């Protein structure tokens, strides 16, 4: 298990959170109940299983719903 912090472009609408949350949760390998979208600091925090999914795949899921990823890092839990 790894913990990832993904920094996004600044989020401006609260409905963005729902979108991003749904998009990230739908990626298999992501622990759905750990997904946290921080509206004000424009970050996503989550745990994922590095054997099943890569950080890049998670980032792609976010980009696909229309948000730019600025920076990301992951470290073992």
């Amino acid at each position, binding site marked *: 298990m790894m913990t990832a912090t993904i920094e996004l472009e600044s989020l401006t609408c609260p409905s963005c959170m729902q*979108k991003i949350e749904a998009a990230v949760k739908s990626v298999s390998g992501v622990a759905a109940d750990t997904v946290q979208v921080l*509206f004000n600091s424009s970050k996503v925090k989550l745990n994922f299983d590095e054997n099943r999914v890569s950080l890049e795949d998670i980032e792609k899921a976010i980009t696909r719903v229309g948000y730019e990823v600025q920076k990301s890092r992951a470290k073992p839990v």
Partner: protein
Amino acid sequence: MQRLILRSKNKIAAVSGLLLAAAFIHRWTAGSTAFFEGALIIASFLGVLPIALQAYQALRVKVVTIDLLVTLAVLGALAIKNFEESAIVTFLFLFGAYLEQRTLQKTRSAIKELVEMAPETALKLGEDGEFAEVDVEEVEVGDILLVKTGAKVPVDGTVVAGEGSVNEASITGESLPVAKEKGSTVYAGTILDNGTLHIAAERVGEDTTFSKIIELVEEAQDSKSAAERFIDRFARYYTPAVLAVGLVVWLLSRNVELAITVLVLGCPGALVIGVPVSNVAGIGSGARHGVLFKGSEVMGDFSRVDTVVFDKTGTLTVGSPSVAEVEYYGEDRVEALRYLASVERESDHPLAKAVLTAIGEVETYPVANTEVVKGAGVVASVHGRRVAVGNAALMEREQVKLSPTVKAQAAKLEQQGNSLVLTAVDGELKILMGVRDQIRPGVGAVLARLRRLGVKSLIMLSGDNQGTVDAVSRELGLTAAHGNMLPEDKAQYIKTLIGQGHTVAFVGDGVNDSPSLALAHVGIAMGGGTDVAVETSDVVLINSNLERLPHALGLAKATAQNMKQNIFIAVGVVLVLLASLLFSEWMSMSIGMLVHEGSILAVILNGMRLLRFRLPRLTGRA
């Protein structure tokens, strides 16, 4: 392509705004409907593009958003050839989003400024003995780093060589420079105003005090109160519900115009954003002034506090003894002080330190035949004269006569919580000093302000003896003060207060006060950001600055008030819109959108007022 459209959202808003203006100007001047309608159609299609795209992206992950409501409304308006409405609504929606983005950036600016103060590079001592610039993330514990004048301290560490003065405003909110020399601790994110320092890295990366503060603030801003969680859940079902209502209206009435007006009026906007916006502005404003609020729930509790409990004498007093009163007897005070200083200079007793600090720089004489009398004081010969420095017991032993006046003065000082230091030269009393742990400067004003802000009881709990505690309590006019208390007694006391129905804030420095901090409705930690106290508390006064306490309370009250105002605005607007749709003729889709966007901006601007929060000055009537 998708990204291009989304990134050009603001440009699209500008273009459709221009088209809209051109269309109306043309109609008023030339009167041709062909150009008018053409321009509006282009504006509508252009404007709805990014909105529809966002709606589609959300739908793909099964989320119904406000974008979908607006897209459907615009398409409906186009279908019934109401190009005026469709163009105005898309423009207002895009323009509103742009303004929201701009103003939201402002409310978050306080935190952003803080984050941007984080250092990025460091000068690290390499194996070749030279300092080279490296990324701050490459610094490891134990590395030796060079900090030059004007540069940021890259990590937390200890000065190993050099000296200078450091501006610690980023950590403490105080811009007064602090002197640093070998052995001093320095913090990441502070700025070296002058001098050069070599430091040994102790805490790096996410472990530095600065990173922890940022993390606390960020988490706090996004932590949700029960009310917010409710609104979130509400919004999740509300938007699809509006969609359903619009559909039902259309099916029943076959009136497209009415149905799409329902879609626009139903957009949840101010309601969803109103509370978070007050929260983020309040927490950000606090962080800029040395107060960390750990979440929005705190704001509500803190604003209702009626009882403030201070954990010990040290919070309200300086924490180390100093000379409070001096009485001189006989002639030649200066000479007597020199004798006293000469003797005390040799001693390492804590009272001696306080006495020397009070005397300051004076000429001293060589001291001989020093005799320490245990539990009483010191006797020595200075310039051939017999000098005795100590308590009343020592004076008795030295057969120094104390007049009734002196005895009365001594008794009064002791009653005020002083320890006595008497100085006799050749058996004659010269100086009487009262030494005690004094009230911190400014505490009186702090307590007065708390009372003005509506705090009813100010209580002190202390491990000190009841006499000392009573003395401090009398001087400060506290509601109650209890001495001889262990940490568990304090926790029990807090529990009792809560049981009596008070809303209690507990101020402590935490090492063993964590139970009380956690128990109180609001735990307020005095401290630098590393303790257990900081973890268990709800509010942190950075750099143990008690003077920030009234500001913190005032800001919490202002923020709680602000949230209420925003909820009022949001709910009020929705009610007015719905009422006017049902009971009046003038409501249309574009007016609805205008009011909707206006209310969002209103709550954001209202929240921004918190960024400029200042406590009103303390005036005459206290």
